[in-house]
């Protein structure tokens, strides 16, 4: 008994700097059992078994490491948590927008990580630590929910027009979410300095409330709201 099969069509952005002058879209077809659904990443892995020159990043394959962010049918997302059946064919795969392409679906994320590093994404507290843990009430801890879960996949920042136009100046949704994660932490003592570093017209205020970040975040986080909170804090501080 042979299983009924179907063909899934793909168009994938290809660019290898050693041979290509400019990028192009390459067609692929994958034959899979009719009834079987799978994650997009699994399909790309199968394509790679057929054409080993295709390059992309992947690691955890369950949506927590943030490696396989890409532009899927025009929308940023993680291949590993996107069901094939949810996509219109031909499935068009491109690298994350706005970042230099190293090869195929692999982008250079340097500027993205620089913006992240800029917000000093670590707890600052120069008081000598207690012998045990610093206490934090469940209510104080709850303020970090929706902030600390970011996986740095860059789906948000690379879908943000403000980040496209000013990637060196606008921190971008991912970085700003982390900025607020530390502003909101009851254990952090550097709130004032953190806020002072964000008062210029670019770092935070390039956000125009386009909300593409909220639309694409694979973890369901809301950078727009976090940016709103930062703005409120800035206004309250009277900067």
């Amino acid at each position: 008994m042979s299983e009924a099969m179907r063909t899934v069509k793909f168009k994938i952005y290809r660019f290898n700097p050693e041979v290509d002058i400019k990028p192009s879209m390459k067609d692929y077809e994958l034959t899979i059992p009719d009834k079987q659904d799978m994650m997009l990443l699994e399909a790309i892995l199968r394509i790679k078994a057929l054409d080993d020159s295709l390059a992309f990043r992947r690691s955890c394959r369950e949506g927590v490491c943030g490696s396989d962010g890409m532009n899927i049918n025009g929308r940023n997302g993680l291949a590993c948590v996107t069901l094939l059946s949810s996509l219109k064919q031909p499935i068009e795969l491109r690298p994350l927008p706005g970042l230099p392409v190293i090869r195929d679906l692999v982008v250079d994320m340097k500027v993205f990580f620089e913006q992240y590093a800029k917000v000093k994404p670590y707890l600052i507290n120069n008081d000598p630590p207690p012998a045990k843990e610093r206490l934090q009430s469940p209510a104080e801890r709850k303020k970090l929910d929706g902030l600390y879960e970011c996986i740095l996949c860059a789906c948000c920042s690379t879908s943000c027009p403000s980040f496209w136009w000013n990637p060196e100046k606008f921190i971008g949704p991912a970085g700003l979410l982390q900025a607020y994660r530390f502003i909101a932490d009851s254990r952090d003592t550097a709130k004032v300095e953190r806020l002072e570093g964000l008062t210029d017209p670019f770092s935070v205020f390039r956000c125009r409330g386009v909300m593409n970040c909220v639309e694409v975040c694979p973890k369901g986080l809301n950078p727009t709201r976090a940016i709103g909170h930062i703005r409120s804090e800035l206004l309250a501080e009277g900067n």
Partner: protein
Amino acid sequence: MVKSATSLTGNGVRDWLWQRVSAVILAVYTLFILGFIWLTPQLDYVAWFQFFQGIWVKLFTLLAALSLLTHTWVGMWTILTDYVKSTRLRLTFEILVIIALFLYFLVAIAIVWSV
């Protein structure tokens, strides 16, 4: 911290605040003018002219003109810094926009004055 000399106040919080305050003033002014046009039963030149003769209307109009100057500058500055990547070209545009906005503002004052 990103330095910027050409934004309205050079400070993101204040730029943002001015854009919002001016937006609210303009929004209310728009309603005010449209409301007058719709609610005046027999709108003619005299009614129109007399309306702008009122001292409060004059003041409100000047305030709105000032708001327009502010609001437009913040908006245009943002647009230019987003899309025009050549510094020289952007500065040129910025100067042109500033000159234009000031001229418009002067014209608005003149019109209000003339009534």
